[in-house]
């Protein structure tokens, strides 16, 4: 199941909420390059709930989401919320967003 909190694009790319689209592109290209070359320090990223594995697919998905303003808006809310209710969101996140994929 997707972890919509832990896979927040800002976490995956290790970028701040105020970053520009260009920052997103540059960071994603850099991380993809590192992952494809097997550079170990790119293999995980920190989240409030601990380190998570980073993959090329995750980086690409994160890049795509942050380039769409409407999607980025939601991710910003979650990324900003990490300091306030990180644990609660982590608990609610997978269930809640798993449900959001239904139609």
């Amino acid at each position: 199941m997707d972890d919509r909190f832990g896979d927040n694009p800002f976490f995956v790319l290790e970028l701040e909420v105020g970053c520009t689209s260009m920052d997103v592109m540059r960071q994603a290209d850099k991380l993809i390059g590192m992952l494809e070359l097997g550079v170990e320090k790119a293999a995980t990223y920190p989240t409030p709930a601990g380190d998570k594995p980073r993959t090329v697919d995750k980086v690409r998905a994160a890049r795509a989401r942050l380039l769409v303003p409407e999607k980025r808006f939601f991710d910003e809310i979650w990324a900003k919320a990490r300091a306030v209710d990180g644990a609660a969101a982590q608990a609610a996140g997978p269930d809640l967003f798993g449900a959001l994929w239904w139609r």
Partner: protein
Amino acid sequence: MSDPLRYVGFDLGTTNSAAAFFDGETVQVVRTSQGGQLTPSVVRITKKGATSVGHKARRFLDKDADNTHTGFKRLMGTGKTLAFPAAGLERRPEELSAEVLKSLIADVDGQFGFAPTRAVITVPALFELPQSRATTEAATLAGLEAIELVQEPVASALAAGWTEDSAGAWLVYDLGGGTFDVTLLASQDGVLRVEGHDGDNFLGGRDFDTAIVDWLLTTLRDDGCDVRRDNPAHGAALRTLAAAAEEAKIELSRSEQTTITLVEPLVVDGEEHEVDVPLDRATFERLVLPLLDRSIDVCLRLLDAHDRRAADIDRVVLVGGPTMIPALRARVQERLAPLAEHPHDPMTLVAQGAALFAAQAGLDAQGATASLPVRHERGHKVLLKYPSMSTDLSPFVIGRVVGQADDGARLSKVIASRHDDKFVSEPATVEEDGSFAISLELLPRRANRFSLMGQAEGGDPVTVEPGAFTIVHGLTIGDPPLSRSVGVALANDRVRVYFERGTPLPAKRTFVHHTVDAVAPGEDDHALVIPLVQGEFDDAHLCRLVGSLDVPARVLKEVLPAGTQVEVTLELDRGGHLTAQAYVPRIKEVFEGVAQLLVPACTPDVLEAELRTMHERIEALRADAFRMRMPELIAEIDKLMPDLDDAERGLDAARGGDEETAQRARRNLIELEARVVQLELTRDWPEIDSEAVDDIAFAASWVSSLGTETEQKLLDQAIAQANRAREAMDAGQLARRMRRVRNLGEAAYYRHPESWRHQFEFAAARADEATDPAKAAALVQKGRAIIDSGDHMALRPLTEQLWGLLPIDAKKRQRSHLSGVR
């Protein structure tokens, strides 16, 4: 120095095809052997089996129509063959497209001295998965070793964006011979992003010709020449007039007046009539104005769906022959937005964009791959990763040492210098694991070539292999977006969406399904059917069936009971090719590679039955509209009728063996059904609106009491969007918006300790209907025990199992492509 950059793109069109070449700085359209830029997508095979392509073949379209074919792009992926009776041969559309590609490859070779083996090919934005797969097959048959597909509007926008400032919102207005497509794109920081598509499959340049012909028929009738569309004996005369109308249309794009003249007299009912009719541009413009406005209405509908107005659009890029009509260009500017500043050739823009996309994809035309280490006797061997084309003026190159130099000196630092000597990077430290990252600076809109030089630990220079690489700066596009949502049709006629429209490709997802019935070993090849569908509708039958993942009974060694878990994984690559896999944990078996991707067959019987149903639904809708006194709905229903007539003509064509027209009719019928569904929703609006209000109240109540602060924010926004759809009385939009409202409400509701007890009681009340009553009874008994223990949340998995045993309505399952999973 390594080889120069060579990128090739092909526009494999329905009527004409073209190729373009990009060297990192300039895009050139490839000249054909005839000296032009377009290759007609026409193939002829003679009695002796000789194949001719392009202009040479087109000359025989009238003279030797049986052995000369065009328009086969529309049949790609259908599995149909086209006959060449003189040679006694049959060819699939993929094979004919391959002949066109071979001709384009030969043209590239003729002009640039090499035959590309890797290239980008464009496909329509709304191509279905089987059609994309067929395009790839055509490329393979033509000898291409690696290809990427890119959507035509994306290619057009890339080409237009290459030559002008690209920031802002764009529309690509693509009017072809028979279809109209419009794409909304947004460009920010040099990155292009597709926001949405729309189109009209009933609108194209041929409709302009038809408008002229209709006018011409009236004019000729006044002169005593009575040609009638409903008289089959007048077919040849109508075709002659249509060809003359097309010529007049093209002529009026250049001059104010023309004369429609036929070389030979028109023969009607045995009588000869001279045709010599003047037509001025003003009359022509009056004739086609409703068609122009229809296309612009589609554009406005697309903008509206994305909460934008015409004023938000910065420019419009025109593509397709009919866009050269001055009145069209003026109308687009008047009602939409300014045209792109630079003059673009609407006939070759797509091919140019394909060549640019090849650069972004790093698809060198002859397979040079800069990221692989070059074998060399000396120097440190490194692997490099960098974007072959970048919007960013300061990209990174990432490297990793994979082999030490012969002298054994350890590589300590790496430096990159640009070939104009005006940029030298900071020395990048080689880490313990051999990796390094260098920040570069690019010159805008140029192919930027860099040299790499290493330093040993003492600072001595050492060679690095490869010692050079190139990055082109320019407009790029994010990962190609999926044009239509893809999912699995469920037995209850709903869709489990795996990839939403716009999902960046490649993509991969897994969901767990459960079998509806028990599946027994035997001889049945389709014991368990998992239909794969494409489309934007909640109802599976409204989506297009594009393949099916089948589990054959003969491979089963034991019975799979109803409710058996099946993990389905769908994967799409960048070109939109779909692979599917089903894993059944109970028997630890994987079923894969069985997705049969074909555009469904289109027999006259199927078409006729679908048409009959459509007539019945429309008449029922009309009766309701009269009864409910809804004049606006009646007007909308009337607008369906010309398209229904068009589908009738498609049925006639299907009976006559014209597969191309029949396939078009099939697609149009599906789209017509979608429009009928929308009108049915309008009819049912009071009920839908009332249900939405109830659901909003449900969600608001539960989220306010059991939701998080973040969920409350999300809900507020979702409700605001739903209310906008309610104000606009847009049932389709409301349905989409309400999904999020309901999901948020349900997420909060299920946190209530009693929620699963209620759900359990609902399911338990229907236990006697279960497909496996004994198992259902056992689950109910177990559930009661859990309730007694007070641990209501433990009811969740049990209730879900119970739901899985409740029967699916057989009629729904039939409509849902016979899906065997829920």
